[in-house]
């Protein structure tokens, strides 16, 4: 039976000599130079298109700017403003609620379907399902949301019409506070689970068959095999899927913007929607940047926490 190794906690290599004392051979230096040369375009891209805007946002968050007039230094006024703005605070709460339910549903559905498709099934049928589940991901979120808005319309939508055929009362999908959030999550998960699904399919394919065969010889049943073998070996994939899922969910915009415009009230207003509204509708770019910086901090903190926790739960082969 193959040994499943849990990675040891990394320790600092005490005996490593100082770098300056080591004389690297010319070949190694050349290889490093070449590597740097190849990496340069990516690094430049990241600096210009990621690091630059982040720094720009932090700087802008310290200014009052309405596009029209010259920016004026505001110090921490924008941060004080957003911390006392009930809409901003509600949007953070909504985004976190959305993230928890959307990511959980997305991972659960994707994993269940990946496990199901990993069983005995004709190859062509498996391909059909894989394509079908991945298909929504390649569509534009905005256009999907426009269609869904029609489908979920309380008065004229197809969904309520179908429910009416079985005698159910019309559901206020987009017009009640809980219904609106649930509908936004449904639409989002429907579109997004294909990505996690694909990751899980790849992860499952990477689990050696011998491990399951050995477990079967030892008398392990289906559920036991999933819990003791499949899930631990799939945990790196689960980590990637959850990290990407959470980062995406915390930045959700198109679906609530098109489906509900943040309503009823503020019930589906998300952080990125608030950033958009403050910047491009209310012309308060400083405050919008401050909210952006707070979202950046939140995403970084949640991701760091995930990696920290992953040391306990993620098992590498």
């Amino acid at each position, binding site marked *: 039976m193959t040994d499943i190794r849990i990675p040891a906690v990394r320790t600092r290599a005490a005996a490593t000599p100082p770098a300056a004392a080591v004389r690297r051979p010319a070949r190694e230096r050349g290889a490093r130079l070449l590597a740097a040369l190849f990496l340069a375009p990516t690094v430049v891209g990241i600096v210009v298109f990621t690091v630059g805007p982040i720094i720009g946002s932090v700087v802008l968050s310290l200014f009052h700017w309405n*596009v*029209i007039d010259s920016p004026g230094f505001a110090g921490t006024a924008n941060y004080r403003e957003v911390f006392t703005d009930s809409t901003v605070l509600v949007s953070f709460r909504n985004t976190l609620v959305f993230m928890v339910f959307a990511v959980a549903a997305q991972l659960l559905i994707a994993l269940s379907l990946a496990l199901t498709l990993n069983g005995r099934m004709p190859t062509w049928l498996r391909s059909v399902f894989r394509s079908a589940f991945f298909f929504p991901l390649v569509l534009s979120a905005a256009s999907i949301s426009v269609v869904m808005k029609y489908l979920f319309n309380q008065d004229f939508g197809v969904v309520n019409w179908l429910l009416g055929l079985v005698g159910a009362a019309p559901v206020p999908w*987009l017009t009640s506070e809980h219904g609106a959030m649930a509908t936004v999550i449904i639409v989002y998960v429907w579109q997004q689970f294909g990505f996690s699904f694909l990751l899980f399919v790849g992860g499952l394919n990477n689990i050696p068959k011998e491990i399951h065969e050995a477990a079967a010889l030892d008398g392990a049943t289906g559920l036991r095999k999933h819990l003791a073998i499949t899930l631990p070996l799939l945990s790196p994939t689960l980590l990637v899927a959850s990290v990407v899922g959470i980062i995406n969910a915390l930045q959700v915009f198109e679906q609530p913007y098109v489906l509900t*415009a943040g*309503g009823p009230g503020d019930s589906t207003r998300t952080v990125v929607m608030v950033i958009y509204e403050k910047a491009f*509708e*209310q012309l308060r770019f400083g405050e919008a940047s401050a909210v952006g910086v707070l979202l950046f901090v939140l995403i970084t903190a949640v991701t760091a926490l995930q990696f920290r926790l992953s040391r306990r739960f993620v098992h590498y082969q």
Partner: protein
Amino acid sequence: MTDSPLSRRALLRYGAYGAGAAALAGTAASWDRLTGADIPGRDDGSLVVATLGSAFSPDGVRTLVRGFRRLHPDIKVRINAVQAVDWPDFFAKILTQIAAGTAPDLVYVATEGVQLFARHLGVPLDRWVKRDAAELREYFADVHPSLVESMMYEGSLYQLPVEFNAADMYLNTRVLERSGADLPADDWTRDDFTALLRRMKKANDSHFTPYFWTNRLWGGVVPWLFTNGTNLLAESKAPGGGWLWDAFYPAAQREGRGGGFRWTTPQATDARVEEAYDYLAGLIQDGLCTRPEGGNGQNLIGVFSTGRVGVTPAGGFWAGGLHLAGMRDDAFDVTYFPRRRTQRHQFGAAGYALLRTSKKQDAAWEFIKYSARLDTLTELFSTNQTTPARRSMLTAARYRETGPAHWRVFYDTLDKFPDTGPIPAPPQVAEVTQVLLKHTGTALASPRSVRPALRRMQGDLEKAMERDV
């Protein structure tokens, strides 16, 4: 002697790589390729006119440009049709262009943005209007003073209105027939309106909604506030404007006119506002109208033309829209908003605003004048996609093909109700709109929700109005 950090062979190899890369870069640089400068009209000294993408058809735009070039062969024009969902989205894109240093010379601006542009970006047209008064006399004689006044800010004129739409009531005549009802009288009341909705509901199945409305600044809850003799923000008029009224309008028409509207103190907790909201909440509870979030302009034509909606507020633009959707000219009709305390209506107008950043202001003024000409507007608005600002364009011939039978309502909303007023759109309009939409949704959740939601709306409006955009 120290060791070389790079061997001779490695040096030669990297030299070859470098030469290869330089050769590639040189080849790429010499390729004939498209750049931003290749966009027709860019940086060629054209007068740039930004319009809301969907406002004019491609044919209309071509007509506009060709006609202007015939008149002014020395002025090049480029129409920049900015694609946007609605006016706030359009303004956001224009402001982004301005921030990026690619500001247009002229921007097509609706009532929603008149004061925002006037306050921060616009150039008053006063001196040109005074200079070309003789030429413009015919224009002003043909345009209702309410439309002109809505384009004034603090005593100055910033746009010449070319189109407008008042919130009138469209009725599906097939639904009226099914319900055994006639087209309401011009002076119908809010109670008549409610009775009609009940009658419609009774005569139709469960998939039918008598009244469909959209939660927005124009045609949403605001017309109900107008007819209840109130508004979201206290309304007054700026002083001034006499230079225009005295020059172009007879005494009867200039009475009470000022230098443009002012919307100041929020009054969302006013008893009349609450009453209007209570009324709508009651309609929703009785299943007589859609919830605000449920309605949106995108599916409105579909549900109205197929008879799943009986009544909806819309302007002259809907005549063209319903015709394009395949609705016969006699399948719908239009009347005024029902009376409550008043029968005052709400309208929104649009025209071209000249930006301060423009270096071609005289040429831009020529375009503004050209765009307001009768022949220009006749060609541009040939499909009834809006109500022309010029009264003389509203003729039986114009509406013969599209309907409705009572097309006179469109301009009579101004002529018969001279107090018909513009959308309450101060410079802080974006935030005011957002606050209105948000709290209207909450307020209409149930009749009990109205008062607390309006209190929150008042607080948010006060905060919004304190800000200087």
